[in-house]
């Protein structure tokens, strides 16, 4: 079967590269075709990349607390760019302050993200979710 294609990166003015590198490795090992945009990635760049590579999912990382601002309107832009229904994940330190994970998930789902993951999530959790959402059977 053709590999499922992921576009990953760290959004906004965030330069935290470590988690991004770990995720890149983990997704590759799990058998995905990964396009890694690295750090400091604007919304537009995620979307352009996803259009051009024909991505199945966009996975946005953010560690510096401004993720909520950076992710606002992303789903709408995806729709606009012809990526209607593309799988959209976010993970990291997604909001400012100590907020329960359920609340984070609620806020990100309200923005049109399919899933959101709190700090310290094991990459395997995300991989399992991807397999489920993309209908990949082991």
């Amino acid at each position: 079967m053709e590999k499922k294609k992921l576009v990953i990166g760290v959004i906004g003015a965030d330069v935290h590269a470590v988690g991004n590198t770990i995720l890149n490795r983990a997704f590759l090992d799990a058998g995905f075709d990964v396009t890694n945009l690295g750090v400091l990635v604007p919304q537009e760049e995620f979307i352009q990349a996803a259009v051009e590579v024909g991505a199945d999912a966009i996975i946005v990382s953010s560690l510096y607390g401004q993720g909520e601002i950076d992710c606002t309107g992303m789903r709408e832009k995806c729709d606009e760019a012809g990526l209607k229904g593309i799988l959209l994940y976010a993970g990291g330190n997604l909001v400012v302050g100590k907020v329960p994970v359920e609340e984070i998930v609620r806020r990100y789902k309200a923005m049109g993200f399919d899933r959101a993951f709190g700090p310290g999530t094991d990459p395997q959790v995300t991989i399992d979710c991807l397999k489920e959402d993309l209908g990949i059977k082991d």
Partner: protein
Amino acid sequence: MKAVLLIDFGSTYTKVTAVDVDTEEILGTSQSYTTIETDIINGLNNAVALLKEKIGDITFSEQYACSSAAGGLRMVAIGLVPELTAKAARQASLGAGAKVIKTYSYELTERDLQEIDQINPDICLLTGGTDGGNKENIVFNANMLARSKGKFPIIIAGNRNCADTCAEILKDKQTYICENVMPRLDIPNVEPVQNKIREIFLEQIVKAKGLSNAEQLIQGILMPTPSAMLTAMKLLAKGTKTEEGIGDLVGVDLGGATTDIYSMSFGLPTMGMTALKGLREEYAKRTVEGDIGMRYSIHGIVDAAGIDRVSELSGLDEERCKELVDYLSVHTDVVPGENDDELERIDFALASLAIETAVTRHAGRLEQYYSPMGVSYMQTGKDLTAVKTVIVTGGALIHTKRTAEIASHALFTPLDAMSLKPKNAEVLVDRKYILAAMGLLSTEYPDTALRIMKRELVKDGTRN
């Protein structure tokens, strides 16, 4: 003596350069009007006759030619995302010496199709999607192109997984399948496309444009003129196996209708804390500013830089500047005479601003970011700050005494500190107008062409 004749069929002039490859000397140059309407050979014969008046009746053992006559190599480029495949397609075409009439992205509309038929390009470059990436868009556009009335050849250089599908859709057209212009995101792969463009140019376009008569006389027209320029500059920068080049450089060709900028440099960041964004740049890059030129596109210079700057640099008041600009836009063959102080001043201002605008557009830019680690930067395009040589050519630059002063506008200025132009570069002037000729000569005699360029391109002072 072994004399070689190098010919540049330009849109206006046919320029000839005679070189003795034994002594590695330029024997002479001359020019005459291009005669595309009758037979291109006439203009060439006139130019050669003029040349022989100067240097005597010598026999040429070899002749090579490049051409930008009959509109040059006219192309349209089609991609998916404007900043990605469409940009890569455009850049690949420009690098092959083409004149890109228009670049299209996303799905072609009926109107676009009509426009393409109207443009009737020499070559259409169809791209879109990385390998394994988006298929729908390029297939849609192939279906659109299948309905075009034009007979132009189409190069298919998009997602390799649907190249055959596209060729099948376009089976009534002349198609060429080529490696993807962007097989992975942000990594353009322009060389295969450029080779294909050159192949088509040699096989068909030379003939179609009535240049093939010249072929009997010459060992073929080798390449479009901008491609010869690019070849020369790349050789000068990189050198050959036996002869060292002069290193990274920026080239400026200021014409009447357009301004071409070349850079031979990878343009990687020279400062710490700088992340690279966007398409990876080719070592040899050419951009064309279609709205910036000394006569036909004179208004474009004023639009881009502002009449106040023209006034400031020329020392003439704004009203007078406007009058002169209008006058020159109509009287395109006017050049400043010996004692025509006013025209000389306005041309100085316009040339300076044309170069400033065109090089600023060509060079990369920095954006500042505040991160947890302090100030960091994002670089788009090439960092040319460390480039040590700027080469200038074009009538407005080689026929003035203030070349160095004009060329200094290609350099970095603290007033626009985020624009990554050369900081401390020496200006070399192509006084004899030999760059394209040396590009041609280098196909057979690279060492000779390099040594002649090193000697003939003259220093014209430095700044900073």
